[in-house]
């Protein structure tokens, strides 16, 4: 099986979750309040009071067969808005 890690702005979280559901993933987990740095600069929690939010980390465990559909739904979002997506191997415990 596969493990997909997405890190992106909380702002796009709803769109990404829609794409994950649409791809038929069996589930996902979300951690908010992630800060970091990437090609678009630094992200902190300092503006949290204004509703701007920080980043979110999404983890998806799924069959390899789902990856293509996931990529199709998510990659355009990451290309346009920023964020990263990586896949690695994972076996059920």
């Amino acid at each position, binding site marked *: 099986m596969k493990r997909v890690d997405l890190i992106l*702005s909380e702002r796009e979280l709803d769109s990404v979750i829609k794409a994950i559901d649409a791809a038929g993933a069996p589930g996902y987990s979300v951690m908010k309040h992630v800060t970091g740095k990437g090609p678009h600069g630094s992200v902190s929690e300092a503006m949290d*009071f204004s509703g701007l939010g920080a980043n979110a980390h999404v983890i998806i465990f799924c069959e390899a067969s789902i990856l293509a559909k996931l990529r199709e739904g998510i990659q355009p979002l990451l290309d346009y808005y920023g964020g990263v997506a990586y896949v690695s191997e994972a076996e059920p415990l």
Partner: protein
Amino acid sequence: METSLVLQNLLTPPVLFFFLGVIAVVVGSDLEIPAPLPKLFSLYLLLAIGFKGGLELAHSGLGGQVLPTIAAAVAMSLAVPLYSFLALKLKFDSFNAAAIAATYGSISAVTFITAQSFLETQKITYDGFMVAALALMESPAIIVGLLLVKLAAPQQQQRPDAKGMRWGSVLNEAFLNSSVFLLVGSLVIGVLVSAYSPASAEKMLPFTDKLFYGALSFFLLDMGIVAAQRLNDLRRAGTFLIAFSVLMPLFNAVVGALIARGLQLSPGNGLLFVVLCASASYIAVPAAMRMTVPEANPSLYISSALGVTFPFNIIVGIPLYMALVNKLLPAAG
């Protein structure tokens, strides 16, 4: 006289705690107010200012200067982003120019509140309907900002999630973003309660009224920290944007003062009107712009509104505008 007003403003707890936050960053203290505590204070301030404004609006009604003032306020929130955009296009692309312009068309509730507190320590009265003006000036500038992007921006890359620029979601973001929604909602609740349940309005006051000044001071401590952290970004943004962040508020203040004179507002209402014109949003608009104009660089519009214009307004702007109002408005004689 301006100097003495500046000092009188400077030496109040809200402004001093703002400074304390700035100093914390400058000297390298690890003082921080971790998320989501600042959100608690910002929600509280919006709820309290809305509720108190509603109570007062119920008393003053919609007669006299109320509607003209509100109309003028909304007109300013439409006009400011238009001429700001023209100025900003000298240096920035359409995305950034529109986002910054929208920021200056909208308002800063905390600057408004600080001005109210200033008036109170000066024992100058003002009216509750100004909160309605505050509430109604938040959204229009967001719409104008997006229209500017639509009209002036280069043919856009197709958004991957159609959502971005559909008008429904833009209007949603403009009129239903949490800060506008809570402010307007609390205002309406204040009006209703004042009319139908005055006893229960009374019971809210220890929370919404008595605590207000202290909570504002605490929140401004955090704002000082956040504003000072923006100083680095600003250096990168360049002198044009820094100059804009001081000169545009001053220009808007003069325009606002002339309108206030035309409307024959009292000095207290006049100051609040000017502050609405001169302030820039760093709560509602940045959240809306990041959602709807992701092409713009948030560090530009946040840093100018929060890192320059906001400190400028609460430190020297408010007393300066007071002096201006005292000069221009007859009633202040």
